[in-house]
């Protein structure tokens, strides 16, 4: 809608200028035609004929009588009317067409400038978005690298921990096995000592039972009585 209004103004101004030019040219042409009276022309021709006749009579050649009109230079009257018409046309164009045309061109230039500014702004925004995207991409890449590095370090640490734990467990198992073996040896030796002791005591009991008759028993009891009887009373 904004673009059709200046175009319509331009078209209207161009049509008005063309109509004005046509009217001007047509008017002046008719005026010029109306001023060329056939009598004067015929009189001028007659005057030229008379001059030609005089020249020919004077011994001039026919070519000297008829000077052909210039194909480039128009008639003076046409030139005058053309200048006037052109001036009028230029004035009309400056008066009517040029402001509309200038306004239209200015509007178009403003529009183009706005579009360029908008394009610059959009470009700036796009560049900003691109920069953000690139920054985010770089951040994401850094973050991913950091995560990968952390994961690698964690995996290394975990591997080291597992290795250390496994080594510790192996050492503990080995130590436990050694302790178990030592403990089993000690138990076996203790059992052996106990069994030997029990066997010896059992043997001693059998020997005592076999040899400890009543008389020997009474001697032991008498010894006990002597021992207890000679001891000091226990303090209460």
């Amino acid at each position: 809608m904004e673009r059709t209004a200046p175009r319509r103004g331009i078209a209207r101004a161009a049509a008005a200028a063309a109509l004005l030019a046509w009217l001007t040219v047509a008017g002046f042409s008719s005026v010029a035609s109306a001023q060329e009276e056939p009598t004067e022309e015929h009189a001028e021709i007659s005057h030229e004929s008379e001059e030609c006749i005089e020249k020919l009579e004077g011994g001039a050649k026919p070519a000297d009588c008829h000077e052909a009109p210039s194909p480039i230079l128009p008639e003076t009257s046409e030139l005058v009317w053309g200048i006037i018409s052109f001036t009028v046309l230029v004035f009309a164009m400056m008066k009517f067409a040029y402001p509309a045309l200038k306004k239209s061109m200015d509007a178009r230039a403003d529009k183009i400038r706005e579009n360029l500014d908008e394009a610059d702004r959009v470009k700036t925004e796009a560049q900003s978005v691109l920069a953000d995207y690139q920054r985010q991409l770089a951040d994401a890449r850094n973050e991913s690298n950091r995560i990968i590095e952390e994961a690698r370090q964690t995996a290394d640490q975990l591997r080291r921990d597992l290795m250390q734990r496994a080594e510790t467990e192996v050492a503990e198992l080995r130590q436990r096995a050694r302790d178990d073996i030592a403990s089993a040896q000690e138990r076996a030796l203790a059992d052996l000592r106990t069994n030997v002791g029990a066997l010896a005591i059992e043997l001693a009991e059998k020997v005592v039972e076999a040899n400890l008759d009543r008389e020997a028993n009474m001697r032991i009891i008498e010894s006990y009585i002597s021992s207890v009887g000679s001891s000091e009373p226990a303090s209460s």
Partner: protein
Amino acid sequence: MSDRVDAYAAALFEVARAEGALETVEDELFKVARTFEANEQLRSTLTDSVIPVERRLGIVEDLLGGRAAPITTALVSFVVAAGRGRDLPAIIDKLIERAAADRQQVVAEVRAAISLDAATIERLAAALSTATGKSVTVKAIVDPSVLGGVIARIGDTVLDGSVRHRLDQLKEAI
């Protein structure tokens, strides 16, 4: 528990003293208590509540009838009939302590592998009296596990002069 044992011991003591047979009852009850402790079958039979009281009393009568004084048998039957057979050794020990205390004495439980004659028991009592500073009455028990020598227990004090004790010390040393 302890109050009940004391009450039964006091009752038995008073009955024995009233009957004028305290010393006899004391000796016989002491032997009954030691037999009761040593014989698992006898202990479980006299303390089994499933067995009728009459049956348990019949067993007591079979064991003691004719071998102990009637008052001793009656007192043991009384405790078993009251359902206190499990506490019989504790009641008897308390009765003996009470009887000794009544005589201003303490009881020494003496275990030996052989039976001791009266003279030996008397010398033992004198020696233990000297050692403890108290008048001691000796209750002798034949215990073959002692092997030789004697073990005297006076209250919480034990004076062990047995071959068994020496063998145990040797065993510990080994």
